[in-house]
C-alpha cells in the first residue's frame, strides 16, 4: 500500500507554480523525509496531501487510494503544521478536551500517560509551555488520534538539540510500536540521516529524487581520480555531479547497483545520504526517479515489516 500517491500533481499561486508535475508513490511502513531548499514546494505538497488545499492540476490520494481530504482520508491521517499550532490561551487539559471532542477517535489514556511521562502539567496554559513541550503536546495530540499516517511539516526547525532528540524519539517510538507511517519535511537533511529510510527530494517545485534510502545509496558512489583522465573515463558514466580540481576530480555517479571495477589510478567510495542529496540539489537537471527498481522497493519494505 502507498501512503501517498501523486500523479501529475501541481499547485499554482497566481502565475507561479509552487509545485508541478509531481508524481510519486511513498510505500507504507517508512519514515519518509521530504527534503528540499526553502521554497521548493515542501509545505505545498504536504498541504495537498492532507487535504488542506486543492490541487491546480493532477491528483493525490492517501492510504491506499483514498482521495486527499476525504473523510476516510482525514480519519487516518494526523498532521502537525509548521508552527505547532495550539490554542495558546487554553490549558493543556482544555486542549485535550477540545481535541477529544473534535475527533472521532481519541486515545485519552495514551496522551495523558505520555504527558505525564514528559512532565507537562495539565493545568498550564499552552503559551506558558517551553518550545519543546509545545511541540510534544501538538505531536502527542496528533498521535492520540491513532493515525496510520503522521505528517509533520518542519517539526524540529525551532527546537533545541535535546528537544529535537526527544521529539524524534516520540515519532520513532510510535513508528516502532504502532507501525505508523511517517512523512516529515525538513531543509536540514543531516539530522534525518539516521531517521529516514525513504527520501523524497524536492527542488524548484519538482520531485528530483524519490526512493528507498538503502537502494539510493547502493546505486550511487563517488569515484575519484586524475583530472587528466576525467573526460575519457566519465564518458561511460552516469555522472550526477562533478567536483574538479586541477589534478584530482570527484564524480558522484549513479550506477546500476553493481560495483564495477574502476580503472587503475581511480578509487571508488560509498556515498552518504547528505552528500547524495546535495549533489542532486546542485544539479537541477539530474533526477533519480521514480526511485530505482520500484519492485525491489516493495520487496525490501515487505521484508522489513
Amino acid at each position, binding site marked *: 500500500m502507498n501512503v501517498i500517491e501523486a500523479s501529475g500533481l501541481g499547485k499554482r499561486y497566481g502565475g507561479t507554480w509552487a509545485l508541478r508535475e509531481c508524481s510519486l508513490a511513498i510505500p507504507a511502513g517508512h519514515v519518509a523525509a521530504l527534503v528540499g531548499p526553502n521554497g521548493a514546494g515542501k509545505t505545498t505538497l504536504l498541504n495537498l496531501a492532507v487535504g488542506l488545499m486543492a490541487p491546480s492540476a493532477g491528483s493525490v490520494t492517501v492510504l491506499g487510494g483514498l482521495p486527499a481530504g476525504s473523510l476516510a482520508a482525514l480519519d487516518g491521517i494526523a498532521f502537525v503544521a509548521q508552527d505547532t499550532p495550539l490554542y495558546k490561551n487554553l490549558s493543556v487539559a482544555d486542549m485535550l478536551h477540545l481535541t477529544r471532542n473534535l475527533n472521532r477517535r481519541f486515545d485519552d489514556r495514551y496522551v495523558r500517560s505520555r504527558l505525564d*511521562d514528559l512532565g507537562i502539567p495539565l493545568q498550564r496554559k499552552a503559551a506558558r509551555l517551553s518550545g519543546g513541550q509545545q511541540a510534544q503536546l501538538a505531536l502527542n495530540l496528533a498521535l492520540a488520534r491513532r493515525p496510520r499516517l503522521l505528517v509533520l511539516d518542519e517539526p524540529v526547525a525551532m527546537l533545541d538539540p*535535546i528537544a529535537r532528540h526527544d*521529539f524524534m*524519539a516520540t515519532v*520513532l517510538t510510535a513508528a*516502532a510500536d504502532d507501525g505508523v507511517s511517517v512523512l516529515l519535511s525538513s531543509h536540514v537533511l543531516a539530522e534525518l540521516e*539516521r531517521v529516514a*529510510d525513504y527520501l523524497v527530494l524536492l527542488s524548484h517545485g519538482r520531485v528530483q529524487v524519490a526512493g528507498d534510502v538503502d537502494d539510493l545509496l547502493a546505486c550511487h558512489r563517488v569515484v575519484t581520480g586524475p583530472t587528466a583522465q576525467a573526460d575519457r573515463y566519465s564518458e561511460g558514466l552516469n555522472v550526477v555531479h562533478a567536483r574538479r580540481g586541477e589534478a584530482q576530480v570527484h564524480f558522484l555517479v549513479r550506477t546500476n547497483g553493481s560495483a564495477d571495477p574502476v580503472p587503475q589510478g581511480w578509487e571508488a567510495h560509498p556515498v552518504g545520504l547528505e552528500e547524495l542529496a546535495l549533489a542532486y540539489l546542485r544539479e537541477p537537471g539530474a533526477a533519480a526517479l521514480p526511485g530505482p527498481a520500484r519492485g525491489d522497493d516493495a520487496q525490501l519494505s515487505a521484508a522489513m515489516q
Partner: protein
Amino acid sequence: MEIDKPVSKPSGAEPSRLDAGSGEGSPAVAGSAIEFRLDPSSGVPTYLQLVQQVEHALRLGYLKPGDQLPKVRDAVASLVINPNTVLKAYRNLEAKGLAAGRPGQGTFITATLSQAGLPELTGLRRALSGWVVSADAAGLDDSAIVALFTSVLRDFRERHDGSAGRPDTADGGEAERVA
C-alpha cells in the same frame, strides 16, 4: 566500537517508558545486557554498527546465550534511529546464527563468539598488559608491539596447528552454536 559496561542484569522489571522529557539522552534499557551507541563519524552504516557491537560484546563475554538484546522500541528511542534499521541489524544477527527472535518477547542471543569466560579474559588481559608495559619500557612503539605480537601468534599457530591462524570470527559465519 566501544561497548558500555554491562548494565545491571535482567531484573525482571519492564523497561520504563521513554522519558522524553527528562533531558536524558538515553532512556533506561533495563532488562538488556548491553546498550548501543553510535559513532556518527565512523562511516559504518548504522545497522552494521549495531551488528558489530553485538559481536564485539559476544567476543568479550558481555553477552552470552539467553541474553536479551535491547527491545526495538528502546533502541529506537534511545538512539533516535529508524525502527527498520534495528530490525535489519537483528535480522543480520539471526542470519549469522547469533540471535533469534521470540514472538512477542524480543530478540535473544543464541550463540557465543567468546572462547573463554569473563574471569579468564580478565586474567589474560592483565597478563598481556604486563607484557605491553615491558615492551614499552624496551622502547617499542605501537606498531612494533602489534607486529611482534602478530609474528609470535603466527609462529605459535604454525607450530601447534600447522595452520596460519584460526578463522576470523568477525564474519560470524562459524559461530559456535549452542543448544
